[in-house]
């Protein structure tokens, strides 16, 4: 029995390492094709990794670049946004995303936000939730060690260091936990990019209802509700309406 378990674990590890190697190989293949200006081929190579269910900021970024070169602005925006979700702090991603957004039809002015909120958002966006989570975990373990020191040390100075240090790291842990929570909320917020050249946004989830407005490819929308094949979407400037699910792709 033990032997079977061991064999299973070994197989799993082997498969995992093989697949990681495989992914890196395909990624490299995409990069090579990109260098040769075969953007369609590069996009295909990157896509094959994406289709396996893996994601990484570099993968999304390069794929978005390939789509940008192929003049597929909506897809470029989609993958830049995905990359940005994985690493909100990357300047290259933000730069290319801005360039791609310039080539979209809709120019949506975001509603003015309160400066404090903006400030908080900048802090929250500093790291993806995975990093905030990792920071929080590290802090809580350090706090544990310090509390253990406090408990078992016979020396006064160690006891004191252990107690106050433990409390400081516990506070850090809570802060990172909160930032991670906010960031995670943002990450799982169902944003989508309009993928069709044009998408009619209706006043109610019916084909027969009137058009509220029209969106064009590459526009970022927030999905708030879903009824059948219709999504209730909201723009950053506050406009809202019902658009077909098939017209958009979730970030």
């Amino acid at each position, binding site marked *: 029995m033990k032997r079977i378990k061991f064999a299973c674990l070994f197989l799993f590890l082997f498969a995992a390492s093989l697949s*990681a190697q495989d*992914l*890196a190989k395909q*990624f490299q293949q995409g*990069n090579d094709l*990109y260098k040769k200006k075969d953007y369609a081929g590069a996009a295909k190579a990157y896509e094959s*990794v*994406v289709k396996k*269910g*893996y*994601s*990484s*900021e*570099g*993968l999304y*970024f*390069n794929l978005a*670049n*390939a789509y*940008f070169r192929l003049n597929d602005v909506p897809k470029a925006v989609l993958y830049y946004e995905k990359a940005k979700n*994985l*690493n909100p702090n990357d300047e*290259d991603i933000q*730069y*290319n995303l*801005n*360039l*791609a957004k*310039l*080539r*979209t*039809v809709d*120019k949506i002015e975001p509603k003015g936000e309160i400066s404090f909120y903006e400030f908080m958002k900048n802090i929250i966006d500093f790291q993806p*939730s*995975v990093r*905030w*989570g*990792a920071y*929080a*975990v590290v802090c*809580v*373990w350090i*706090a*544990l060690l310090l*509390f253990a020191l406090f*408990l*078992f040390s016979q020396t006064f100075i160690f006891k004191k260091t252990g107690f106050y240090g433990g409390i400081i790291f516990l506070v850090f*842990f809570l802060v990172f*936990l909160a930032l*991670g*929570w906010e*960031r*995670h909320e943002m*990450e*799982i917020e169902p944003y989508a990019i309009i993928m069709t*050249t*044009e998408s*009619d946004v209706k006043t109610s989830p019916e084909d027969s209802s009137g*058009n509220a407005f029209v969106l*064009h490819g590459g526009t970022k929308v927030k999905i708030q509700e879903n009824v059948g094949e219709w999504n209730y979407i909201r723009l950053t400037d506050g406009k809202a309406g019902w658009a077909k699910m098939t017209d958009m792709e979730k970030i």
Partner: protein
Amino acid sequence: MKRLLSILFILFSAIVANGQKLTASAPAEVGMNQDFQVEWTVNADGNNFKLPPMPDFQLMGGPYQSTSFQMVNGRTSQSISLTYQFRPKHVGKCTIGPATVQVASGTISSNSLTINVVQGSANSGGQASRQPQQQQPRGGGQPQAQSGSDGQNNGDVFIKISLNKSNVMEGEAVLATYKLYARNVQLNQLMMSKAPAYNFFWSEMLPEEKNPQMTQEMYNGKKYAVALIRKVILYPQKSGTLTLDPMTVTVAGVKQVRSNDPFFGSFFPEYQQFSQDIKSTAYSIKVQSLPEAGKPAGFSGIVGKFQISAKATRNKLKENDALNYTVTVSGTGNFSQVEPFTLSMGPEWDTYDPKTSDKLDKEEDRISGYKTFDYTMVPKVAGDYKIPAIHFSYFDINSHRYVTLNTNDIPVTVEKGSGNNGNASVSTLNKQEVSLLGQDIRYIKSKPGTFSDAGSYFYGSAGFVGLAITPFLAFIGLVVYKRRRAEENLDVTLRRRQKATGVARKHLKTANLLMQKKDAIAFYTEVLMALYGYVHDKTGLEMAETSRESIQEMLSSKNIHETEISSFLQIVDQCEFAKYAPVAVQMDMEPVYNQTLSLISTLEGQLK
């Protein structure tokens, strides 16, 4: 003689009474808006003339007095006439009661008159019946300066409305003609002071002639000078009885004044300036409603006869190019109601409001020509589209049925524009963004970064929760561990203390047995164990610390008397010595045993 005189007097008075008469005269029939005159004549000198109460008429002017003398067969007779001008207040038979006047012989009354007031335009017939009386030359009398209102006034100038059709349908054109009729006056000026408002009508004024010519026309057997005031084409907007509001025209001119001077009047006719407001009567039209049967859905009240055509300037164009689409409606009817058509081209097109132009001829009784709607449309997205057909419904006035005309769908192909879509919105970019537009994207990354499952998040995952919660559990575990260990330590000392006497007694019991067996070494070992064990258990000290000094120190710290300490040490020394001494120098074991027993029982009391 006296009797004769009285007969004569009666006779005379009868003659006098017969002679003094007050007579009233007026036309038998007058129109509703017509002023008329009533004349009372008394053939004697009289005063204190009283008008009867007249609830049905409004006094408009008067009295105008005239006196006439007549000489018949050498006798003169005098008559005084008083003329008043009235206007009827309502239609129907109205009575003027008797008027009274004081004459020498007393108060006399006039006859009463019944006047028939009729609706509608002035009937000059009634007035005409008075004309002979007025034209009757009157003997003597002064020329009348105040003749402005007498004789030929309203009845001689009036407005007549005529319609070219008596039976009109909703939306059907009807021509209304306003004419001014005048007789015995010369009109110099004609001005509309109150134009009628045509409620519930679309009205199209026909252009006025620049120099309207007076024409001659016979009306009621009389010759009138006629001026055309207005011609208007009216389209009734609803069925039922509709009323044309009256029109008021101010006329000015000259009229002949008939002289009352029997000697000079006829030779030198006098003329007088006058200015007058002439009001037409209200006119009612009966309008038939359009049939409900077969009324098309989009019918908007257009009546006449029409054709429709539509064409686009081109069928193929590029994004953001303009397309012109022209719809022309031509024919005859109420064009003013032909409104632009709404085109639904969908959100891919910018459709601008159409430019409307028309060329319409207003003929006698109809408006014909065409009306054009010019639409400009700009496609924003490439694709195949069609301009939807237009449906235009009207009621054919000739065949009396509804007709719906349709144009054809016009297919339009829109090709991709030369520039990309972004170009259209470049103007909305700010300066910084425009400079960015020229930049190229940053190059791809050579390293993919860590691959993770797409859509899976570390934050909030089971692993994350585990890693974050474990330290807390571990901390709790540590605290629990520490406390339990402390508790355990506490327990061991306590138990040992409680059992100390028992353990010592157990050792002493073994020692007693060994004493009887004369096994000295085992005996002393046992006694030592009893003593050390007892002290250790009682004080909680470890067995390792069994040096003589440490025990002494410890015992004194526990407030044991010096005698007991020294006795303890003495026994220990004895035992240690005896344990290693040769068999020959065996001591008696009995006193050691008894000493130990008594020492332990003493310590039992002191080591609490």
